[in-house]
């Protein structure tokens, strides 16, 4: 069986994935999957989705050759997949454009979403505004503080932003709260999960809607590089931008897939968000996957300079790709990410999101070890405007 046919009909990628939710949600997830199976083959739906990706999101996003940076790194040719140029500034919009059509198709009136960096919240609020649906976004109080710009954007778009005060007050707690809302309002509400995480069928749906990224790269590589790239690199929070890039290449075994997790203050300090590197198998948010947890099975507090990577779990397909060895997962810590953020901003005039900067930081190490005739494609999952406040405050600058 080729890995591309996963998940199975129970949503499993090997032992990972599945559907670990309270009974109230099982019928809702069944209904969602039934609808999804129909629309994913429906020509009308697909043409609407692709039209929105083109006219509203601005796809295809360019594959940009980073000439100056490549010269500085002195090795492989580095190409940037410009998801930062999408409407709303990140890859997250690809998924929300798809899921909002699904929501409308199912006759839902109200959209809810969880968000960490605020990018998925903004992307959800954006499509809800466009389709005239109510939108409530759950966001940890900690993240509301460090991503205030995106909070204001969501409000301007007409969404209600609900601060979450429980647990660690970050993305995982926002997801708990969104789940609680969904259980309560399951009849009229559609929950747009923002990464390849959560109970089946979300990991599959979110992956499929983001796969346009990798599909474009296949074509662009043929035209611009003349063949498939040798290595694909992307940051991994829940894992949607990485899987969007990786998935269409899964069966092209000659292409190396590398995901970069948030190393926070360093793996050895325990203050990080790298479950694939330093976690173990468990169950959270409806899925079986690698988790950061203690010996008693309690989920640990995570740390990352980037809110979008500050999550103790990871999409189940990544857990599977790791175990099978098809993809490799490394870490970049806060400092390394900040260095890469600055370098790429200065050298290429492209200011990446702090999440993305983790991927770029690994490219800095990798490119010099490769040959000139080889190439790397790195997913610029988002732009850095939202992170200006964070970077300034690290530098001790008040804006």
């Amino acid at each position, binding site marked *: 069986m080729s890995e591309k046919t996963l998940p199975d009909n*129970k949503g499993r990628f090997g032992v990972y994935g*599945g*559907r*670990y*939710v*309270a*009974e*109230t*949600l*099982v*019928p*809702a997830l069944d209904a969602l999957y039934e609808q999804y199976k129909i629309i994913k083959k429906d020509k009308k739906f697909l043409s609407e989705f692709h039209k929105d990706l083109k006219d509203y999101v601005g796809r295809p996003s360019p594959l940009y050759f980073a000439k100056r940076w490549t010269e500085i790194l002195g090795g492989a040719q580095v190409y940037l997949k410009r998801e930062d140029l999408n409407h709303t500034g990140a890859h997250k919009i690809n998924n929300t454009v798809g899921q909002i059509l699904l929501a409308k198709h199912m006759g839902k009136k109200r959209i809810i979403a969880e968000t960490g960096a605020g990018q998925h919240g903004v992307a959800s609020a954006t499509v809800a505004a466009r389709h005239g649906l109510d939108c409530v976004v759950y966001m940890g109080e900690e993240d509301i503080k460090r991503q205030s710009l995106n909070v204001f954007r969501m409000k301007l778009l007409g969404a209600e932003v609900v601060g979450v005060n*429980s*647990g660690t007050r970050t993305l*995982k*707690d926002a997801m*708990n709260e969104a*789940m*609680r809302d969904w*259980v*309560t*309002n*399951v*009849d009229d509400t559609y929950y747009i999960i923002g990464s390849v995480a959560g109970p089946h069928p979300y990991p599959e749906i979110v992956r499929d809607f983001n796969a346009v990224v990798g599909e474009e790269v296949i074509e662009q590589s043929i035209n611009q590089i003349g063949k498939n790239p040798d290595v694909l690199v992307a940051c991994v929070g829940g894992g949607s931008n990485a899987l969007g890039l990786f998935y269409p290449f899964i069966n092209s075994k000659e292409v190396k897939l590398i995901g970069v997790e948030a190393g926070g203050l360093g793996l050895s300090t325990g203050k990080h968000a790298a479950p694939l590197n330093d976690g173990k198998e*468990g*169950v*959270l*948010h*409806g899925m079986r996957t690698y*988790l950061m*947890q203690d*010996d*008693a*099975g*309690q*989920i640990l507090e995570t740390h990352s300079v980037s809110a979008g990577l500050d999550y103790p779990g990871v999409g189940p397909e990544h857990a599977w790709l790791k175990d099978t060895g098809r993809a490799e997962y490394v870490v970049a810590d806060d400092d390394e990410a900040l260095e890469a953020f600055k370098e790429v901003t200065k050298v290429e005039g492209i200011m990446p999101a702090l999440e993305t900067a983790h991927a770029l930081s690994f490219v800095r190490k990798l490119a010099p070890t490769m040959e000139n005739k080889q190439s790397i494609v790195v997913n610029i999952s988002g732009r850095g405007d939202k992170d200006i406040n964070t970077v300034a405050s690290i530098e001790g600058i008040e804006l």
Partner: protein
Amino acid sequence: MNRIKTTFDALSSNDSKALITYIVAGDPDLETTLNIMNCMVEEGADIIEIGIPFSDPMAEGVSIQKGHERSLLNNTSINDALNLVSKFRKSNKTTPIVFMGYMNTFESMGVKEFCKAAASQGLDGLLIVDMPPEESTEFSTEAKNNGIDVIRLIAPTTNISRVKEICDVSSGYIYYISVKGITGSNDLDSEDVKQKVKLLGGETDLPIAIGFGIKDSDSALSVKDLADGIVAGSVFVDLIGEGGDTITKIAKKTKELSAAIK
């Protein structure tokens, strides 16, 4: 000996209903939990559900979330909860105890290890909130091997064919969730519950307990004739959260609910 069956059989021969009460192990500490358990039994509780604290209790409302948080301040573990059962069993050999919690904490102890230890300490049933039948192969087998009932949830959203499937793999009793929502919800609609529970009764011989939204004698009364038992949780966890003379307050509340349904 199966205490859950014995309890429901005795109640039904008296034409009486089960009062099932829920508190979180170690909220605010294990000694208090043990005292509350004994007090509840004294005031008319027939079955006690013990919540196993988890960092991410996705199906709980604010009241019970806070109970979990208070308990985790002392790092209450699943082993602590098992010790609690064994202490309780020293003086009480008849009242069934059910653990209610989330998959990850049980699994991290090991499914087999947990079920074995639980049986030897005197646990009777297990309700894992985020474990629908599709994901419970290992638990079902191990629980059965050790004589522990696996209690399952049925929700207002569960359709009839699924009700059948769930009933087929349940034991002990069926927990009917009376509202779409999380624990501590307010808007219990007894007409709706009546219809659903009637359907449910046609599919199983197991006793049916109704939970979510029951907090006083009125709400208890409104559903008591529909099923074999009622579950009350958030109201007790709130009383614990208030502090003060917890035991007295819990005794009074247990008595109120018991009087309403007996």
